[in-house]
């Protein structure tokens, strides 16, 4: 092995004076290619903000959990016929588009079931009554963080009709894996 006795310095030895040299050859070419690639990566994100349709702007408002729960209840009352069925998670709330709609995350359920219309745009307010939760809309696999004290507003436009599931993907307690909700699109 004799790594200490070669003529030029290894990574284990102090480099000879004058080691500060510009890169040359393939190494120089590669660094150039890497810089260009990094610039492409950097430009893609702002570009998508202007031209792409899927962005997380982080629009949010501070709200006390108790106040948010009141807003959800008011929203449910205003948009439903038989309130008890909504409370039991049997009947959905059917808000008229476009508009402000509400979803509450709590240990271990999403409330209420929402029935939305395809192609319409809604402002979906989500917050938590207790712990942090993860809003994971399936099968599209769209994911957003839900933090108590923050009203997270997603401006969404449902596409194809069908039944979609919301699975919690932030650990929120021992029953976390049972926290599944529903959004129906017609």
């Amino acid at each position, binding site marked *: *092995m004799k790594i*200490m*006795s070669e003529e*030029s310095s290894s*990574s*284990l*030895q102090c*480099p000879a004076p004058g*080691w*500060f*040299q510009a890169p*040359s*050859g*393939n*190494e120089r070419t*590669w*660094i150039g*290619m*890497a*810089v260009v*690639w*990094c610039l492409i990566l*950097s430009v893609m*994100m702002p570009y998508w903000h202007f031209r*792409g*349709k*899927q*962005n*997380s*702007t*982080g629009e949010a408002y501070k709200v006390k959990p108790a106040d948010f729960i009141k807003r959800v209840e008011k929203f449910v009352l205003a948009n439903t016929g038989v309130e008890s069925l909504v409370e039991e998670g049997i009947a959905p709330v059917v808000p008229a588009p476009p508009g402000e709609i509400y979803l509450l995350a709590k240990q271990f359920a999403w409330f209420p079931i929402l029935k939305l219309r395809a192609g319409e745009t809604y402002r979906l307010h989500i917050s938590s009554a207790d*712990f*942090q939760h993860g809003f*994971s*809309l*399936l099968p599209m*696999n*769209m*994911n*957003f*963080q839900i*933090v108590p*004290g*923050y009203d*997270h*507003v*997603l*401006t*969404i*436009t449902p596409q194809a009709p069908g039944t979609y*599931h919301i*699975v919690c*993907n*932030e*650990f929120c307690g*021992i029953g*976390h*894996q049972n*926290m*599944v909700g529903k959004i129906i699109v017609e």
Partner: protein
Amino acid sequence: MNAKSDSAKRICLTTGLTICRQAEFFVKANAVLAVVFLLIGGIAAILLALTRWQTVHLLPVDWFYRIITLHGINMLLFWILFFEVAILYFVVTTLLNVRLASRAIAWVSLSMMLTGAVMVDVTILVGKADVMLSSYLPLLAHPAFYLGIILVAVGTLIGVINFFATLYKAKKEKTYEGSVPLVVFGATAAAIIAVVTLLHGAVVMVPTFLHSVGLIAQPDPQWYRLIWWGLGHMSQQVNVCAMVAVWYFLATVTTGAKPLNEAVCRSAFVLYILFINLASAHHLLVDPGVGAGWKIWNTSYAMYLAVLASMMHGFTVPASVEVAMRHKGYIRGLFGWLTGAPWRNPGFSAFFLSLIIFGFLGGITGVTLGTQQINIIAHNTLRIPGHFHVTVVGGTTLAFMGLTYYLVPLLWQREYIFKPLARLQPYLFGIGIVTLSVGMSFAGSMGVARRSWDIEAAGSIYGPTAHLFLGLVGIGGILAFLALFLYVGLTVGTLLFGRRIVGRAMEDWGTPKVLSTSAGHDHPAPIQAGAGVVATVHPTQGTMVLAIVFLISFAVYYFANWKALADVWPVR
């Protein structure tokens, strides 16, 4: 090379390195404790893999979340931090030929770290801290959990300060001339990042601890996320930095490689120090309360300079191996240097597999998932652990394992037992981790959540393919665990029963021999550079081809993910 009988130092007869006896104990103690925590984390890992494999579904629900907390903390904090302190002490005292600045401080560091780690593990196992590694508020654990983490963090910080003091001592006593060796430079970069990381840890953990004992009101959960990831993500960048330093170390001892260009390697480490601290933002890309501008700035303009640094190391490390191998006469074709490399040497195979797994799998997925908008289709799914198991495990842990195959004979002066098994171990571990990661990544692409005991409650949302990939997670987990167990068993067995090699060199694990017939034909051609310094143009075509394959794979994966994102509901 003569073995000096100076009581404070001894010369390693294999490498010619000077081992400082006074630091030796602390290198050994930290390394052994690291391996103990690796074993605890490993046992936790196999329990988790066998639970997520839905067909087996081993653990009951509460134990699953408890063990996930145990696994994350032992692997990402304890194994890594203890081993890093060992590396810091070893590198600075050995390569700079200096005594450790203070044994007393090393004792304080070690005992604080150990006390803290035991406190945390006990608190978790008695069920008082089912909060995951990230322990997001308002989830609250027993105060002993936070206090333990604070002790580990402060203990590590004290160890890092001891490293800096030793560095200063070497400078003052002029134990070396000019600039420090590259490996020391890399370790120093890791130590600097560690200081910033651990300060974040103190800023977030102290108020959380005070809250847990009821002294102050609950800190804001969003603030907690921001600062906690200053600890959580940056500590992984300490690993990256230490891992790259280990790559340089192992490339040198296994193939005789030398840095192509010291300035490039060192600049890349400086880029890590300057820009890696912004990576905390990667965990907040779909969070409320932090705006798009902030998210983009932190993940792009600054972050990609750290990506650039990894791409530089990713080229320069294999290129230096190529140059060294060609120099020895392995000049056939584009890849004769690679096929002739010492693949039976576990130090080499662990290092090179770590490089490939980290770069091709870990790096590409990391940058892609950390793209602000693409994170929408990845956040908190199994794609995330699918990514970091090929960086921190397939990359860092595998590199540290490779280092062990040299560190143990060097420090304990014992020959490894069952060498054929040791030669096999890096491959088994690499294959296991890659299988696990592929399973996680594909299951995650179907939306399967991380940190979830069961996917049955979600009914038929995922379908049979997700079950198939979760099965792959189980099988990969079993293979990786067997390899980890083999690593721990061989290493502990060697400490106890290995043949003593005091007074002579260790048996060569296998380093490439100089091919006498063709040696000398492919020497780098010297050319004159500025100021009369001789620079060289190196034959690195093989590495260049690998690098271009890497870039193409990167681009394909990256843009495929933009395409997948374009297919989901419009959202803003």
